[in-house]
């Protein structure tokens, strides 16, 4: 008993993992399976923010924290688009990002998979048209899958990612 209490006091809290509920475990299992079949267990993603408020990036980043832990499933963020298998775009498409967006899309290897996260790329967020915004991403690039929300929460992104993988 004493040792149990002692253990509790001395435990390294930083190493404790949050409890993953049934849904996360189920999504993990299915995602792992899909990534194994379609991407040989390693899915490299490149995240391009074309003008977001950062909420979508933070929700994407949350997937790599101990609760959602998707690096365990073989998902990895890369910082060179030429290495990536999947391009994720967030934010409204700004004029200043447009040339870089074209460059990034061209550098993405074949087959080009592009998914959007959030309402902004689809021009569904409450922003209005200005000279600095290039309009819907879909009118410039082919979007394979759309994960909507403002921002979509990490679970929605996981569900969306799974649906996309099952679709291709």
């Amino acid at each position: 008993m004493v040792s149990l209490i002692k253990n509790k006091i001395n435990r390294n809290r930083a190493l404790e993992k949050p409890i993953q509920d049934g849904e996360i475990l189920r999504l993990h299992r299915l995602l792992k399976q899909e990534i194994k079949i379609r991407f040989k267990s390693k899915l490299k993603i490149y995240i391009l923010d074309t003008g977001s408020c950062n909420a979508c990036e933070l929700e994407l980043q949350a997937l790599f924290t101990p609760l959602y832990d998707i690096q365990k499933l073989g998902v990895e963020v890369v910082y060179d688009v030429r290495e990536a298998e999947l391009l994720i775009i967030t934010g409204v498409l700004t004029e200043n990002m447009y040339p870089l967006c074209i460059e990034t899309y061209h550098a993405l290897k074949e087959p080009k998979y592009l998914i959007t996260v959030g309402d902004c790329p689809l021009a569904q967020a409450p922003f209005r048209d200005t000279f600095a915004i290039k309009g819907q991403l879909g009118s410039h690039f082919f979007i394979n899958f759309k994960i909507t929300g403002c921002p979509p929460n990490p679970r929605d992104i996981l569900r969306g990612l799974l649906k996309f993988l099952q679709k291709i």
Partner: protein
Amino acid sequence: MRLIARFVKEKETYFEIITVYDIKIAKERINKITPVLVSITKEYPAATWFERKIRDDFGIEILYNNDKRPLVKHEHFPSDIFPMRKSFDNVSLEYTEGINDIIEDKHGLVIGPIHPYHLESSQFQLFEQNNDILHFESMPFFKYRAIEKMVEGLSLEEAKPIIERISGTSTIAYQLNYLDIQLQASNRVLPKTLKERHIFFLEFENTINHLYDLAIMCQFIDFVEGYSFFMKLVEEGRETMGIITGHRFGFGAIDMECYTMEIKEAERFIATVEDELLWFEKWIQKRTSLWKKLVQRGVITKEEALSFGLVGLVARSVNLDIDLRTEDKLYREYGFTIAQEGMGDSSSRFKIRLSEIHSSLKLMRCVIDSKVLPFFIGTYQDGEYYSYIESSLGELMMYVELIDSKIERFFVRDPSFLNAQILSRCIKNNEMESLGLILKSIPLSFSGNDL
């Protein structure tokens, strides 16, 4: 005198230059035929970006500002268009040849638009030799959505959903700043209970942001356990924010309707963070190797902070007492004290975040209340309104001019607009390995900065 902002308002026959200092607001008029403005960069180096933006937005020539590069208008942006002028109302651009005259050096390295240091778009130009950083420059406005222009002609209500989405991580601060303008325009004062509710949300947002920054700083010093520890708390924070406001980031949280709050969830979060943080502080005390990686990295001196008019915890990490919360009666009533450090390096900015989380949690405990009464703002009077609030990044300033109840001019100065200008100084001469740490130790939001 501290420079807060410098911006332009276009009138029928002249341009009005508004320069906001901490103790006064100076206004000057210049003609529209040959508009020339005398730079104040000699006295206030941070005026550089403001003046470059003025030149891009309105086509006003700046005398004695040596930095002739465009700031807002990137490559492909037509050089003869000045988009903030009232006469320009196009919603698309016709491309011309590139106007980018940023000098590209083959020995330098341009990092971006997405790089490991930020998950958002900005570009950094870096020159390095033998692992030492010789030159560093930040190139912002990749995320420029022209929010200032977007909200012109809208009513205050119509613009609200846009304002709350300027920056996802500072949405509560932006909403409160905007509410303050609405209150000034309607000549109303918030009841104490509602004000306390808003303090609660603001401090909640500050806590989550500080926890997030601490996590990323840990990641950059290869302290994986620390990263996991703080990220767990960030996720709990966002979940709790979702339960109490209906949105994980707090979009739409600042409304005037009567609503109840899940007080138990909020209390549980406060208790968890307090307890976990105390354990963490005790735990890292003996880990000297960690502090070694933080000490003397990205040093900012008090003189630099003063001359660049730095705000927020970057200023407080060099013993400056710049915190708008100390001027607030309610904050004082609850015994709010300013957190300060003296070294001006990454370790100071790490420690200051820890102490600010403690004071935020203490405040949140004091002001937590389950119910507030409904409140109605009423009608708005035309006029000019300025508002200031202390966000987790520092002092956030907003300006609105209302004519016929519509927004005539909207201007925001995000704390990042001042603080990002110090990057080139505090990163220079550091080792390449510290780059990510220093960048993340200075709280910046490019979405707020680029607007």
